[in-house]
């Protein structure tokens, strides 16, 4: 098997070449220990199997960026048989800089001239044979975006694998040559690398290599000091300069520029897109479109996908052991809980998919770095990066979003400090699933001021994120690696459909795999915490006697009717109850009158006798049907009471009560604590839990109305709850992604506990102040808003001491 590494500078179209070669048969993982994607594929050519690995895009093999370290480690440790170097043919001179470094490695190399169509359009005539002679390598033309060149590349790789390099390529390093040979003599080189390449790396002060080849740091320091004193040159700049001039020479030998280049299309587009006056409106439009398509339209799409998921869920429920009136078997309860937890996440798949597609398009087009170019100045003030824009927007910088794709989009941020700060602030954005919670409380307590409150809620989050980012980057993240902002603004490209699809599917699949597994694990834990130790014996007996009474009443109605024979056993009554519930559930999903007819038909065939009652076929059946409805309601009420009793008694309930002495200052009693605790599984649960705790059974009133009438809470309580919810920790799915993208559990724990801490402290502070000073709920919210906004503006004006760079010394 031949091991082949795909190398190239960023923006050379390497991923399209990889997709071209690998097709769908590719595997995405991480390089060990880091969050850099490792794409690989196994393919066959001429009866030989090839293992193809896509190295991260790098400009060189120094140690200064994660991608470079990863790429270098791969070449050192995995010893690829052939290196495929992809270069942008329309920008050959620049891309040859990496080619020279790869040639010096002394491994068989295939040079792929990608984007030949662009080069031709620009009037560049590239003499491949000359290039091939000059470097003594195989040169292949390709157009990755048009799927051209696959066979040629594979044939060249196959041939290259057979060759053995006797004398490796060398660049003349002029005055440095004596020093290179001096080091070469001292080092011990492994077989697969040339000693010259290693000596060059040593001279460049590459610590990783220095350690490997058994040369002392002192020797290296002495040599570079000598060069400095004798020739007065900076070794790195000199080596790079010589490589660039070698590239320049090769370029002039092999490329004819047919006509004077006019203004390129990219330059024309940039004159509008990056223009002083139009840049912001266009950026706003792009962000609005992404938001509108993914979040708003995606959310609408879930209206169509939800019934499908619900149908699967109902099918699954029907397989679980049947409920016997008020006795729900443990397995059934567990199954329902798990299915609902997983479904809550799967429900968002349309949103995520659209988002991933749009992100892939923006990446391929080349707009991402331009976004950073436009906004960097603002974000830098708060320790963030121009590239933080998209993650924050996806997280819900407007009315609502989702932190999961937001955090996933932080991947491209080169600056480690800004990237971590972005990861930790995105969860503060407005999560879509928080909206029902807000509407519940606003509906109950702030009917008149709803719009104003919603405005406060949705805009305060951005200020909070900016403050937090500034605080983090000037404290815990202070010592984090920062990267220079320096980056290429790539040529605009039309994205390819297959490339975009493939990337979106890969990301979606990773999300499903990672997130759902963890959510399942946490859901199990939460289930146990909510289920045990269970209801006390005497309480249980009380519930049971109530259930028996209800059953007895029902039996009284049935006695003497022709239907008695089919309802003379308790099991038969349970059966009728379950059939009734199942029918009602299916009926809800039936979209048309025809579907209802079909449904009735199905049930009639299944249970002809019992269905007569459900369909209220005659006088007696109608009477029984009425009694059945009462029984069903009584059962539901009892189940609810039992559930409440169970939650009250549960470990989580106990924990909620333990917290009460602290949360009291924020106006939260134990019931609210439980709701917040369970919201960790998924934000939706907060509403569900509050709903079930407050539901008074038979009334038709919404939970909002019940809460308002309950009297235990005032609008100030509600405002305090909203304040806490704004700051509250992210859901598990987000936690998992924080862990994935930050690569550490430490940050995940920080992302959980810091918001809880600030949430409790701030809501306690504002609640107490409100009680003391007689603020209304709206006052509380407004004061909080103004405080936060003022702090954010203040921090924006205070000069950030760390500009990232200081002016160096001249010698």
């Amino acid at each position, binding site marked *: 098997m031949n091991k082949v590494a795909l190398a190239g500078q960023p923006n050379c179209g390497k991923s399209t070449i990889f997709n071209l070669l690998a097709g769908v048969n590719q595997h995405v993982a991480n390089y060990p220990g880091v969050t850099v994607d490792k794409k690989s594929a196994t393919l066959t050519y001429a009866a030989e199997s090839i293992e193809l690995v896509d190295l991260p895009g790098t400009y060189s093999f120094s140690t200064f960026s994660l991608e470079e370290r990863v790429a270098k480690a791969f070449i050192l440790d995995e010893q690829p048989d052939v290196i495929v170097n992809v270069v942008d043919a329309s920008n050959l001179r620049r891309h040859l800089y990496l080619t020279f470094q790869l040639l010096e490695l002394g491994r068989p190399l295939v040079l792929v001239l990608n984007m030949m169509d662009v080069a031709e359009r620009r009037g560049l005539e590239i003499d491949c044979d000359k290039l091939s002679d000059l470097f003594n390598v195989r040169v292949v033309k390709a157009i990755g975006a048009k799927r051209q060149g696959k066979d040629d590349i594979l044939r060249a790789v196959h041939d290259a694998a057979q060759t053995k390099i006797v004398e490796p390529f060398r660049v003349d390093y002029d005055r440095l040559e004596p020093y290179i040979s001096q080091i070469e003599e001292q080092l011990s080189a492994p077989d697969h690398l040339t000693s010259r390449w290693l000596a060059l790396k040593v001279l460049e002060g590459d610590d990783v290599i220095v350690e490997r080849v058994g040369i002392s740091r002192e020797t290296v320091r002495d040599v570079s000091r000598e060069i400095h004193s004798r020739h007065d040159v900076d070794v790195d700049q000199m080596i790079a300069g010589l490589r660039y001039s070698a590239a320049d020479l090769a370029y002039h030998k092999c490329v004819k520029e047919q006509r004077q280049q006019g203004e390129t299309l990219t330059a024309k587009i940039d004159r509008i897109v990056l223009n002083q006056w139009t840049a912001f409106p266009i950026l706003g439009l792009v962000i609005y479109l992404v938001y509108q398509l993914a979040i708003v339209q995606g959310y609408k799409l879930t209206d169509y996908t939800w019934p499908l998921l619900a149908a699967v869920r109902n099918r699954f429920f029907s397989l679980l052991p049947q409920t016997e009136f008020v006795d729900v078997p443990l397995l059934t309860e567990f199954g329902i809980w798990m299915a609902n937890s997983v479904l809550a996440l799967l429900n968002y798949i349309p949103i995520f998919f659209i988002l991933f597609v749009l992100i892939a398009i923006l990446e391929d087009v080349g707009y991402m770095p331009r976004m950073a170019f436009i906004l960097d100045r603002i974000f830098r003030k708060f320790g963030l990066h121009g590239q933080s824009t998209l993650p924050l927007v996806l997280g819900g910088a407007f009315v609502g979003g989702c932190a999961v794709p937001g955090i996933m989009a932080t991947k491209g941020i080169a600056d480690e400090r800004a990237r971590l700060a972005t990861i930790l602030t995105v969860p503060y954005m407005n999560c879509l699933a928080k909206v029902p919670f807000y509407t519940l409380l606003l509906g109950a307590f702030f009917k008149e001021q709803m719009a104003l409150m919603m405005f406060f809620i949705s805009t305060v989050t951005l200020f909070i994120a900016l403050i937090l980012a500034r605080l983090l980057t000037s404290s815990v993240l202070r010592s984090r690696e920062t990267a220079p902002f*320096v980056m290429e603004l790539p040529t605009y490209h039309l994205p390819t459909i297959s490339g975009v699809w493939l990337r979106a599917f890969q990301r979606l699949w990773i999300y499903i795999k990672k997130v759902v597994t963890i959510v399942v694990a946490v859901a199990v834990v939460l289930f146990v915490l909510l289920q045990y130790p269970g209801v006390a014996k005497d309480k249980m007996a009380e519930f049971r006697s109530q259930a028996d009474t209800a059953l007895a009443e029902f039996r009284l109605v049935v006695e003497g009717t022709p239907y008695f024979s089919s309802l003379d056993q308790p099991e038969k009554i349970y059966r009728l109850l379950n059939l009734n519930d199942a029918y009602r559930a299916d009926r809800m999903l039936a979209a048309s009158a025809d579907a209802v007819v079909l449904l009735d038909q199905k049930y009639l065939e299944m249970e002809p006798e019992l269905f007569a009652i459900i369909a209220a076929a005659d006088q007696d059946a109608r009477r029984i049907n009425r009694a059945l409805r009462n029984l069903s309601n009584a059962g539901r009420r009892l189940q609810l009471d039992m559930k409440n009793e169970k939650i009250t008694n549960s470990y989580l309930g106990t924990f909620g009560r333990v917290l009460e002495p602290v949360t009291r200052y924020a106006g939260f009693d134990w019931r609210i604590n439980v709701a917040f605790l369970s919201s960790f599984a998924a934000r939706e649960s907060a509403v569900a839990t509050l709903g079930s705790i407050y539901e008074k059974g038979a009334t038709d009133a919404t939970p909002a109305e019940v809460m308002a009438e309950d009297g235990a809470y005032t609008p100030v309580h509600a405002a305090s709850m909203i304040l806490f919810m704004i700051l509250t920790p992210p859901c598990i799915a987000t936690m998992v992604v924080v862990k994935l993208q930050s690569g550490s559990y430490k940050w995940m724990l920080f992302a959980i506990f810091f918001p809880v801490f600030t949430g409790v402290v701030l809501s306690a502070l504002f609640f107490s102040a409100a009680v003391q000073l007689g603020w209304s709920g709206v006052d509380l919210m407004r004061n909080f808003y103004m405080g936060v906004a003022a702090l954010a503006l203040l921090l924006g004006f205070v000069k950030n001491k760390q500009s990232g*760079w200081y002016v160096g010394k001249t010698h």
Partner: protein
Amino acid sequence: MELKQLRPTLSLSDLKKNETGQVVYSLAQGTLKHKLISMGFVPGIQIKMVRNAPLRDPIEIAIQNSLVTLRRTEAGLIVVEKL
């Protein structure tokens, strides 16, 4: 050498829109130095100031057929000769 001294040098961040220059040397160290080298900022290379960002910082430079953006603080470390 004498002739070279006569040409005034200035930092890259002081170039105005559409002005061209030649890199003389860079004062950057560590990561920034290597990043700049890998983007092509080595002595002798010609560059052109393309534009400022809408908020004046960062700036966009054309170098060797490609467009590179860098912050003013970073560009301040590159010494160029105006052409």
